[in-house]
């Protein structure tokens, strides 16, 4: 029975709870449902991107281009909105997801067909995507008064007490929970990351699975691109600069092994929420926001050191039954 409780997620969840209790002891207003909902809404983009990154990391790759993809898609849809203000939101969403997925596909093809290490590919595409934003926008900003009210209103619209942005994050989490545990694609992602050689022998196309992971990550980055630009009602070259590392950090804190094959949807979500709580709590408890970077850095180091300790298996697993008792 004990083995059904994921230890790592439980510890991370209690760490987050402890953190919230500590914050509440200094500022009770932080734990009101309205504020917690706010924190969640603020963390929603990070949660969505962390799930996409999780899939990529599970297949032994890494996607450093997500923030640039987000910014490029955001700029593209913002400019489309300026040019065609009447375009309904479902179209905008479809364009954002497609555009993001296409950029993910570029990464995926380079990794799959040309066997270029993912870190090199996505380093390259990261700078290329950022540059393209400058080219299409001419370095100009798209400001809120240029965007249509429907465009900026969508992520903020309330539905059953929560903004649409939060609902999209919740739906993504549920969809990923199902995908990772119930679909062939989800299982093959774990198989590819756990042991690529074995995956080949079981008939899984390793390269294509990695390609799929990049497309998923890109599509989510595109979706978040629209949500981000609409929520903050501004688009420019540098939006979400450096956000790719925060996304990777959320995954690492959530216990997703950078070596691939190990990780869970719950872990990625909790990792993102941890960073979100820290970010939102600092101003509340009167710590300068300049501390945030150092705190998230320390959190990554502690999390990775901790995960390595707990993840160390004592011997080689030979029998399936032995694996179950672990």
């Amino acid at each position, binding site marked *: 029975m004990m083995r059904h409780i994921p230890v790592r997620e439980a510890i991370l969840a209690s760490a987050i709870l402890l953190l919230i209790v500590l914050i509440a002891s200094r500022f009770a207003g932080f734990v009101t449902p309205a504020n917690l909902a706010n924190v969640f809404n603020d963390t929603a983009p990070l949660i969505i991107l962390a799930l996409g990154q999780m899939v990529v990391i599970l297949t*032994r790759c*890494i996607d450093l281009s997500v923030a640039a993809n987000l910014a490029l898609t955001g700029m593209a849809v913002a400019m489309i909105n300026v040019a065609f203000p009447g375009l309904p939101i479902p179209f905008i969403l479809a364009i954002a997801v497609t555009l993001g997925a296409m950029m993910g596909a570029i990464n995926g093809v*380079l990794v799959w067909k*040309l*066997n*270029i*290490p993912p*870190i*090199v*590919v996505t*380093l*390259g*595409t*990261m*700078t*290329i995507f*950022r*540059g*393209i934003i*400058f*080219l299409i926008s001419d*370095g100009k900003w798209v400001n809120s008064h240029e965007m249509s009210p429907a465009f900026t209103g969508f992520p903020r619209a309330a539905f059953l007490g929560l903004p649409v942005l939060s609902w999209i994050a919740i739906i993504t989490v549920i969809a990923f929970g199902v995908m990772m545990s119930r679909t062939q694609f989800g299982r093959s992602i774990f198989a590819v990351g756990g042991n*690529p*050689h074995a995956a*080949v022998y079981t008939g899984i196309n*390793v*390269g294509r699975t*990695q390609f799929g992971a990049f497309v998923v990550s890109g599509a989510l980055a595109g979706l978040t691109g629209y949500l981000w630009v609409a929520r903050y009602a501004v688009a420019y*070259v540098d939006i979400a600069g*450096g956000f790719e*590392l925060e996304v*990777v*950090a959320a995954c*690492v804190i959530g216990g997703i092994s*950078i*070596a691939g094959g190990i990780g869970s949807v719950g872990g990625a979500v909790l990792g993102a929420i941890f960073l979100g709580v820290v970010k939102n709590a600092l101003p509340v408890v009167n710590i*300068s926001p*300049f*501390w*945030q*970077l*150092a*705190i*998230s*850095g*320390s*959190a*990554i*180091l502690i999390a*990775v*050191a901790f995960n*390595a300790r707990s993840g160390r298996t004592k011997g080689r697993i030979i029998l399936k039954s032995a694996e179950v008792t672990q």
Partner: protein
Amino acid sequence: MTNTTQTRHIPDRLHSRAARLFKSWEALLFAVAIAIFVVNSFASPYFLNAWNLSDATFNFTEKAMIAFAMALLIISGEIDLSVASIIALASTAMGLAVQYGAGTPELVAIGLTVGLLCGAFNGVFVTILGLPSIVVTIGTMSLFRGISYIILGDDAFRGYPTSFSWFGQGYIYWVFTVEMLFFVIIAIVYAVLLHKTNFGRAVYAIGNNPTGALFSGIRVARVKFILFLLTGLMSGVAAICLTSRLGSTRPSIATGMELEVVTMVALGGVNILGGSGTIPGVVIAAFVMGLVTFGLGLLNVPGIVMSIFIGLLLIGVIALPRLWAMVAAQRKARKIA
């Protein structure tokens, strides 16, 4: 790594030394560098000017200093993404020391020490705790720069002593800058270290097969620890040069430089998965990146657009030979069939 069906082609006889040299990555890169040089000198009348070219070297000298140490680290199968943050922390420490009246020798000592300490910090996590370097250094990347932000906030340190400006603004002779001298010395030191010493052979051995290296008597952890120390030290040197050149320290100093350094190393033909690469390759890559940025700058191309070229260059130089090999293999297969 992922392509398990790839077979290794073993030639009947080795190519001659000259043929290998001609077909090497470095030769290809060198040709690219020459091509960029020629195109640039036609594209802008200001390109072929000794002083302009001298200024252009600042585009790459500081990054290249780190890139040499990073090349060794990557060949050994590790990576350090925290180098730009080490620069920020070392620069902040020097700026702080200036407020307490430190002179140039003290500043240099502080810059180098902070670099070494940061490298040691990374090294401890990677070699003693056995953690993956990419994650550790993503963490320390936030941590080191985070400490700079805690100390400085949105402030800046200024008031460096006049003699300190020698490192980043001084000239040795005519158009040759102090940074160029550092660049050349460091390149030679690392080339000798990697290509002519036991330590260098150990680095290759570790990158190709860490377990095998361990069983052949190489102290893998110690070598890796030293490589992290060296990368930290070089970041300290780069921090001294950059701070001296800018004359001020902000916590956002050198943001994103780690990616440019890694790009330079990868462009230089170092296998990002470890095991192979040369220092001459990195030297040429440094010139290629410097010439591209300088040439485009003369043509009034904004910095962000230049990054497109750097990105394309990075992917292109790795993708094209692989595409070429794939096409050649297909043609061969068709011939046999």
